[in-house]
Every structure is written in structure tokens, then in C-alpha cells.
């Protein structure tokens, strides 16, 4: 594979953007997203197959496993196009979080098979690592869930929360405390001793709470352990934070565009309400948040695609962008409702679809406050920098 020049890559990205937007706008109108809410699994597996036919489920997967070996910039185009239509399919949880975790953690036959099937759209794995209600005390390098040797296999006990997709996943990559530190194990959805409770999320999708009651697994289901497992989880987590931010940015753009249309057309007191200065100034503040988010998102995606990037710098950037995007997502959602007035709080009006998705994505994997704390911890030493 020859490396494309910058302008060739930009052209390819433009083509992908056009084609993704074209496909998603046509195949995933807002009424589709609306209709899939509040009934498990909360998305459409046939639509997932259609994404696979587009080649998008294999975008990040190595060519040797049937994927397209593209960068995060390409993945971002697809994720943004889907988020702009509030499509409920768990693209980032499955393709980025689980897919990248498999790729980073392991080269076992099992991991290879799962990635091949993921690229084809046949398997939907999910990552299960959080255990706390708020997630605030969930470190990436520890887990209370235990993985022990038992005969020639493994025994898993404990529980996990906030697992997306919360229904319909084919199996879980579970983090656990093992004999050699953190361990990552594959647990098929139908494993005996695994119980799942799907909890409804604001946007009509689901997060799973998993309980492992002495789940027996073959030894080959251990994907990684020790520092390699920690590094793989941290990296996939960071990549997922960035791609979730890409989705949040797409929501921000859609919500602001809807709001501006409304301000231009809604007439009160004999004038379009967008002519009122107090509303104009609030709209400008949303524009600033949108453009700040866009600037950081573009730096963060570029950093993921930079093979030289330092792991700590990547983590700091991932937390930084998720903090900005989460807060911008919620701010724009709140203000969009206020600027719309009463129509903005009705379920019937489409703005609600975006607001509910923003609530879910802002909270997922750590909201603005949590990400800023992680950023502060990661940059604490660098805070002793030279300053004027």
C-alpha cells in the first residue's frame, strides 16, 4: 500500500464524507431513528449489515483480516455522518472501542477470528470495564471483577456496568483482576452464569449491567494480561473518547443548524426572532463552542493517526477533547431548546432526538468534569513547565 500525499488523502476524505452523508441521509432518515427507540436492542441489525456492505465495519481492521486498514480520520467521517442523523447503531462502541481493543490486546486465533467477523459485520462485541455507578472511581488498570485459573480453564466472577450496546451484543471483552494484574477475557453472550440487564438510556438505546456468576471460560479466552492489557485498554479508551467527541460535534452542528433555521423563520412581535440581539448573542456563543470543539477534534483525530504520538500526550488529548465536546454538546442542547421555546421540549420535535443522544454521549466513558480530572492528573508533572 503506498502512502497517499496530504492532498490525495484530503480528496479521499472528501469523497468518503460525500458518500457517507449521501448514504446516511437517504437510508437513515430521522423517523427511522425515532421508531427504533425504547425497544431492545434499540437499533437495527439489518442496517448494521448495510453498513458492512458499505465497507464501514471494516474501516479500521487490518487488511490481512479482511478490513480496509483506514485511519481514524476516515472512521470519523462515517461516525459523524451517522451521528448527524442520530442513527442508533453502536458504531463507536463496537467498531472503535471493542474493535480497537481486540486489535491492540491480542493476536490470538480468537481475537483474529473476532476481528475478521467484526469487519464483515457478523459479530458485535462490546467492552465491559466499568463497575461504579458514576464511573468516577473506575481506573483503567484495576477491576474488582476476578478472573482465576480453574483446571485448564478460567473462572470469572463479578459485574460490570455502562456496557454499550446494552442489548444484542454477541459477546464482551471483560476487564478483570487476574493472577498477573489486569486481564482481558472474551465472554460470549450466551456463556453460562452470565446474566444481563438492559437499562434504558435517555436516547431510547440501552446500556447493559452484566453479572458474572462463576462463568467458566476456555483458557483461550484470555486475550491479554498485565501491562499489555492495561496499555491496550487505555489506548482503545482514548481512541473511543476521540470518536465519541466526533459524534458529539456532529450533534452540535445539527442542533445549531436547526436552531438558526428556527431563529430565521419563527416570527413574533412582527419580526423573525433571530433579529433580536439577545438571541443573536446567545447563538454566537454556541457558534464559538462549535468551532472550539471542531478545532480540538481535528487535532485529536490527527494525533490518533500519528504513529509517533506519545501515549500520555494521546491520553491527555483524548480527555481534553471529550471534556470540550461533552460540555459543548450539553450547552448547545440546552440553549437550542431555550431558543426554540416550548416546541423544543416536545418529543414530537426532532431536536429532542439530538438532545437525548447528547446526554448519553456526554455521560458515556466520563463526562466533562471527569475528563478534566483525568487531564489534570495526566498533565500534573507538565504543570511544572517553564512559564513567563
Amino acid at each position, binding site marked *: 500500500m503506498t502512502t497517499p500525499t496530504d492532498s490525495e488523502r484530503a480528496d479521499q476524505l472528501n469523497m468518503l464524507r460525500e458518500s457517507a452523508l449521501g448514504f446516511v441521509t437517504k437510508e437513515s432518515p430521522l423517523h427511522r431513528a425515532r421508531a427504533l427507540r425504547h425497544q431492545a436492542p434499540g437499533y437495527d441489525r439489518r442496517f448494521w449489515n448495510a453498513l458492512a456492505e458499505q465497507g464501514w465495519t471494516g474501516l479500521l481492521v487490518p487488511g490481512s483480516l479482511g478490513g480496509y486498514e483506514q485511519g481514524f480520520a476516515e472512521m470519523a467521517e462515517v461516525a459523524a455522518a451517522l451521528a448527524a442523523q442520530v442513527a442508533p447503531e453502536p458504531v463507536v462502541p463496537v467498531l472503535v472501542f471493542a474493535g480497537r481493543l481486540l486489535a491492540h490486546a491480542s493476536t490470538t486465533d480468537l481475537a483474529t477470528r473476532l476481528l475478521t467477523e467484526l469487519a464483515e459485520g457478523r459479530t458485535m462485541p462490546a467492552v465491559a470495564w466499568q463497575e461504579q455507578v458514576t464511573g468516577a472511581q473506575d481506573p483503567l488498570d484495576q477491576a474488582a471483577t476476578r478472573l482465576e485459573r480453574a483446571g485448564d480453564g478460567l473462572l470469572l466472577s463479578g459485574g460490570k456496568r455502562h456496557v454499550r450496546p446494552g442489548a444484542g451484543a454477541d459477546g464482551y471483552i471483560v476487564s478483570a483482576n487476574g493472577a498477573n494484574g489486569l486481564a482481558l477475557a472474551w465472554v460470549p453472550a450466551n456463556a453460562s452464569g452470565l446474566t444481563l440487564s438492559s437499562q434504558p438510556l435517555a436516547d431510547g438505546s440501552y446500556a447493559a449491567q452484566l453479572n458474572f456468576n462463576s462463568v467458566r471460560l476456555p483458557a483461550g479466552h484470555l486475550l491479554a494480561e498485565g501491562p499489555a492489557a492495561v496499555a491496550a485498554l487505555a489506548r482503545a479508551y482514548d481512541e473511543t473518547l476521540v470518536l465519541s467527541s466526533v459524534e458529539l460535534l456532529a450533534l452540535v452542528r445539527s442542533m445549531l443548524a436547526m436552531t438558526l433555521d428556527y431563529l430565521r423563520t419563527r416570527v413574533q412581535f412582527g419580526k423573525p426572532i433571530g433579529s433580536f440581539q439577545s438571541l443573536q*448573542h446567545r447563538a454566537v456563543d454556541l457558534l464559538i463552542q462549535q468551532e472550539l470543539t471542531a478545532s480540538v477534534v481535528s487535532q485529536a483525530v490527527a494525533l490518533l493517526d500519528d504513529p509517533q504520538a506519545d501515549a500520555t500526550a494521546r491520553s491527555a488529548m483524548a480527555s481534553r477533547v471529550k471534556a470540550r465536546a461533552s460540555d459543548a454538546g450539553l450547552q448547545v442542547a440546552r440553549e437550542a431548546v431555550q431558543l426554540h421555546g416550548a416546541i423544543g421540549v416536545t418529543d414530537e420535535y426532532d431536536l429532542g432526538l439530538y438532545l437525548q443522544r447528547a446526554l448519553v454521549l456526554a455521560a458515556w466513558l466520563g463526562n466533562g468534569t471527569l475528563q478534566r480530572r483525568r487531564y489534570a492528573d495526566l498533565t500534573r508533572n507538565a504543570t511544572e513547565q517553564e512559564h513567563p
Partner: protein
Amino acid sequence: MNKPSTTTGTDWNALDNSSFRATVREFFETRYPKDLRYPKRRLRWAEIRDWYLTLSQKGWVAPSWPSSYGGMGLSPEKLIIFIEEQERWGVGRAPDMGITMVGPLLIHHGNDAQRADYLPKILAGEHIWCQGYSEPNSGSDLVSLRTEAVADGEHFIVNGQKTWTTLAQDATHIFLLVRTDKQAKKQQGISFLLADMKTPGISVRPIRNIAGSEDFCEVFLENVRVPRANIVGELNKGWTIAKALLGFERIFLGSPKQSQYALARVQEAAQRLGLFQDTGFVDRYTKLALDVADLGALYGRFIEQVKRGETLGPDVSMLKLFATETYSRLADLLVDIAGSSGGMPGDIALPGGKTDVLTTFYNARPATIYGGSNEVQRNILAASVLQLPS
């Protein structure tokens, strides 16, 4: 007076960026007076004069002017590096209206005689210019200005008042926007006029600001006779020219440097006060630290646009808004963590060193007002970027 250097002709743009940066940095670090780094207020001519003349002798006093007029002829990309290095080293701003405004004004809109008269004297530090735009009743609504110039043979008789004129007390010359046709529509009766501050009828009253310094002045004009030859460009076309002078330098109103400096002050004070043990403080600090970092990302995007040679659109206003409002929030935090010392001007003795708290607070006030108040900038963004109705 020193003559400007004749070493012009160096093609700085031919240097690669890192060599150019190193050259500029080395010069600033070795030649700029250490006690004037990061000044807390605008420096007066008497304080910064030597540095101006040092730059003049080096041929570096007018980085953006074409080399044929004695400037460095820097490309936008090189000019950005030059300014970044000034900011990095905390080089104080000299009274630079001659360099940033009058030079480009005369180069693009003046005539040969005006260029020959004025440009060399600006380079030599012989003429110090101030900007006569704002008036007591024309601030954000500048186009309503009323200072009047009435033709009288080969002269104009000027009457009126200018205000917020930065460092007018140090200036030898003033460039004025004056009304030359009272009958025309607002924008169409305005002209650019140059005047010597020694002309009879011009008087200056410095205005003491809340920080206790005299950065700006009122300028009174009473029957001031100015030669007709001092009109720049066409009569009654001053407004158009003034707008055209707003080049890409507007981007520097949104530079993150001021906020980075304020953040460093907050960090320094917080360390001295042991506040990094306090989660509540760390949360507030990190939020602002990320605002500053993200401002840097947004700024970088506009800088890239300038480097590509593209014209900046009205959307650049958002930089100024976020930069100055972030700076203002940092100033608030600094005052807040100073607690009971938050009302003390000047250096406050904290454990481990002195910190000045109120200078940042005072500096943050005009930042959201000058260069088009933040409210006017929001109006501009709403109309021309968001396309909201008027």
C-alpha cells in the same frame, strides 16, 4: 536622530522558518532590555525609545512593510513567527501606530510626496503617531463621528474632539478620521487627514485609568489649520480606506498569549497558596487551562488560513471574543484565590514570592471593549456568519 539601517534587501522569506525563528529569537533575547519584559501596562515612549531605535538600526522596526519602503517585507507566515517571538519573550509594545497603521495607509492609499515625507521618519523614530478615531459620542458606532474639517483654500479647518487616543501625549502626529461632507450619508462624508500635533489648536489631556496609568488621552481640536495636502486618498473615501486597513493583523487580537500569561500567573499564585491540593480549585483551574489550550487550537486554525495566503473572513471575530473572555475569567480567578488580598493593587506578598493580582483584572477590562467591543463583534458574527436577520 538615527538613520534607518540600509541593510534592507535581505530576503527574510527565503530563510526556512526555523532559521528565521532562531535569528529573531536570538536578537530579542540578547538585545531587548530585561527589565521591560512582560510590562504590566503600555510603555511610554521614553521607556521604549531605545528599543525602537535598536530595531530601527537593525532594519526590523517595520516587519510588515515591503522592503522597498524600508520594511522587512515579511510574508504572513514569517510575520506570524516574528510576532510569536515577541510575545514569547514578553517584548513590550512601542507606540506603533506609525508602523501598523500609517505605513500601510500611505503605502496603499497615499501619494509619493506623503510617502517620501513620512515613511522614513516613522522608521527612524522621529515621528510617533497616534490614532484619532473614537470620539466622546462615537465609540462602537464610529461612523457617527462628528469632528469636522471644513475646506478653506489650501487648508482644512478642523474642529472637534477625539478620545481614547492611545499615548497621544507621546505622539508627534495624529491620523484623523474627520467629516468632510456633512450632507453625504454617514459613511460617505468621511476623510483621512494627517496632522502635526504641534499645530496650534490641538491640545491633549491624558486620561487616568482604573489601574492608575495614563495609557490614553483626550485630544481637542479647535480651529486647527491642516494643509489640504494632508488628506490621504480620495476626499470622502476615508471610511472605505479605514475598513480596508483591517488586515489579517486582526488575528492578533485573538492570540492566546495573553491568556497563557494570565494562566501562568494563576498557577504561580495557586502553588504558593497550596491550592493544587484542593479539588474544587483544581476543577476550576483545569477548566480554564483547557479553555486556554482550546483557544490555541482555534487560533491555530486561523493562523493556518493566513499562512495559506487566504483572506480572513468575519468569522475571525470569534477568536477575539473567546480570547478576551477567557482572559477575563482568569483575572476573576486570580482575584478570587487572593481572598482578602484581592483588593490590593500591586505586588502581594504570598508564601514563596510576590504576585500581582489586580493588574490582570484591570487589563482584562479594556480587552473586551477595544478593537470593536465584544457585543459589536457578536452583532457582526450574527449577521455575517450566522446569517441571522436584522
